[in-house]
């Protein structure tokens, strides 16, 4: 499987190359970046449904079960994440071609963007704890810089807050890794899981606590969510879409799920804690989102709430729960990116993000209005859009596992989300035109293309739950997480 390291090497190479050639020529940067993301997307599509493969860097194949080097693991879960990341990044780069004309230094923007993609791909593929930390830092540092890319007051302030909390999170994670190393003498996830074997002592639980708080900070689960409502709205719209759509999921939820389920083992206590965290995020996120006047802040709070669903499903630990959670993860990536791109288009056209100044935009911006309506209906869980199916199956999974309380909360939050998004639609796109709707600029073509593409995906994505698609895409990913410590058996070949 020679293709595996290229998932990281191609975006890295492009990121190093673009600032050298593209400083004077923004169109060249557009072209190179779009080619790179397109190539990554095609590569990700080409590995769907493949058997799990392990790639040992530098040819250090383990002898006598001792892994010497770093390994990359391409199993169902990694493939799932790679497809999600590359799908969103492809559509976002198409959008950025014309949106980012409003900013200077396009070459640096694209370089940082590709570094972020490379970091996320690295996190999704790696089978080594410390390597996970390194690539997590690449993605995080690139995102800190991208949040502050506009260099205005609130952007700098939001980025500083994000950076400080993000570094605290990274340090907690590194501490957790150090404790794990001190107990096992290894950094290879598979070897650690065979050494610990699911037998968690108090010190391991301490490491788990460090991991949950560290990755919880990165994923903005509720007690740790303070940075997200500042950071996500401040970034340029394509970056907001990437951050809410895939970054918090890859370096937060995916990494947490991988370490806790596959490496350390899920005990009933940990499972309960994760589910409670998910439920709190769900409820608090949607309540805070109701009162927002800034369209992007509104979407950011709703991200917290929707991520809560994913965490709840993963915390259940059953096959149906995990599969439904992953289904919701990719759905949320699609519709939240779409909604953030819509808000960017609205800001581009009207120059404001304040909902009180908008109104009646549907006639002025038909494409944005229509795609935003589709995105809102999908996130609110109206059939037949994709969001309905994933929420339904998360609730069913809760019922199946006899967690009726959690199921009730999930259903209730879904109703609140519907109310919140209908209100958003009414204030922004329907109703009487207000001052900002008067002078409206045209939304450029590349932005429309990517919004329409995402809106179509919102409708089509529901088909992923059909038996055929489910068997090739979702179930292999869910199986990896659900089988837990069996992870070691196919990585080390024992």
């Amino acid at each position, binding site marked *: 499987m020679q293709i595996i390291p290229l998932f990281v090497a191609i975006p890295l*190479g492009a990121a*190093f190359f673009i600032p*050298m050639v593209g400083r004077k020529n923004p169109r060249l940067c557009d072209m190179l970046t779009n080619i790179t993301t397109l190539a990554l997307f095609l590569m990700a599509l080409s590995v769907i449904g493949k058997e799990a493969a392990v790639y040992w860097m*530098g*040819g250090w194949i383990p002898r006598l079960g001792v892994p010497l080097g770093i390994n990359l693991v391409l199993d169902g879960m990694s493939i799932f994440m790679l497809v999600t990341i590359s799908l969103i990044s492809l559509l976002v780069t198409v959008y950025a071609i014309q949106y980012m004309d409003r900013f200077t230094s396009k070459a640096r923007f694209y370089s940082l963007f590709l570094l972020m993609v490379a970091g996320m791909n690295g996190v999704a593929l790696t089978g080594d704890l410390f390597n996970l930390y390194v690539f997590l830092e690449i993605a995080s540092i690139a995102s800190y810089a991208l949040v502050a890319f506009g260099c205005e007051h609130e952007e700098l302030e939001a980025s500083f807050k994000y950076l400080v909390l993000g570094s605290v999170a990274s340090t907690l994670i590194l501490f957790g890794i150090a404790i794990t190393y001190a107990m096992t003498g290894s950094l290879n996830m598979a070897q650690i899981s065979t050494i610990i074997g699911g037998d968690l002592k108090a010190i391991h639980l301490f490491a788990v606590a460090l991991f949950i708080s560290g990755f919880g900070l990165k994923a903005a689960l509720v007690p740790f969510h303070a940075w997200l409502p500042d950071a996500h709205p401040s970034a340029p719209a394509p970056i907001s879409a990437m951050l809410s759509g895939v970054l918090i999921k890859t370096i937060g939820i995916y990494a947490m799920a991988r370490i806790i389920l596959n490496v350390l083992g899920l005990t009933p206590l940990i499972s309960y804690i994760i589910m409670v965290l998910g439920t709190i995020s769900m409820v608090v996120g949607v309540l805070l989102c109701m009162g927002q006047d800034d369209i992007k802040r509104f979407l950011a709070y709703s991200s917290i709430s929707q991520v809560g669903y994913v965490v709840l499903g993963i915390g259940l630990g059953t096959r149906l729960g995990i599969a439904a959670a992953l289904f919701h993860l990719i759905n949320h990536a699609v519709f939240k990116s779409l909604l953030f791109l819509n808000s960017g288009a609205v800001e581009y056209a009207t120059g404001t993000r304040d909902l009180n100044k908008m109104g009646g935009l549907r006639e002025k911006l038909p494409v944005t209005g229509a795609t935003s309506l589709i995105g809102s209906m999908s996130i609110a869980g109206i059939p037949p859009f994709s969001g309905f199916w994933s929420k339904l199956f998360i609730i069913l999974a809760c019922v199946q596992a006899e967690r009726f309380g959690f199921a009730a909360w999930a259903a209730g939050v879904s109703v609140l989300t519907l109310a919140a998004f209908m209100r958003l639609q009414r204030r922004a796109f329907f109703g009487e035109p207000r001052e900002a709707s008067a002078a409206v600029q045209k939304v450029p073509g590349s932005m429309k293309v990517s919004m329409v593409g995402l809106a179509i995906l919102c409708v089509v994505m529901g088909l992923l739950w059909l038996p055929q698609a489910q068997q090739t895409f979702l179930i292999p990913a869910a199986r990896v997480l659900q089988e837990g410590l069996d992870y070691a058996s196919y990585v080390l070949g024992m």
Partner: protein
Amino acid sequence: MVDDVVRPKGMSPIVKTVSMWVKGFILVFGIYIVLYGHLTPGGGFGGGVIIAMAFVLMTLCCGKHEALKRMPLGVAGEMDSVGALMFLVIALLGLSAGLGGTFFTNYIAKADPGTPFKLLSGGTILLSNIAIALKVATSLFLVFTLLVMLRVMYKDER
């Protein structure tokens, strides 16, 4: 008084002359650390930061104009990219079938097992060290220049 940390024209002639001499020694020492990184303590990172220190010393004692004339920011930025690309290319070369077929293969050592304790005994380690030293040295120089001289640069324009 406090804005004298980086004086535009540099410090006194005595300081300049001495540091000109010292700078050469620092550079040579840094290069030694890089090249023998696989045998003695040090390596690309240690050597790279030492080389960067030589430039920092020059900036501090001779002023920013002199330093930026020797090492313009644009060139430093390009070299930053070149160092990173070089390391990636060393890794990618290992992917080609003739040289081992995996990312990051130490193909030189495997093709020709050298005697230990020699300059060339580490295979690609030596090349990687050089690439990293280039990368680290230019990066640290850029960090220093940007963060320490930022305000001077802005002030000059006002």
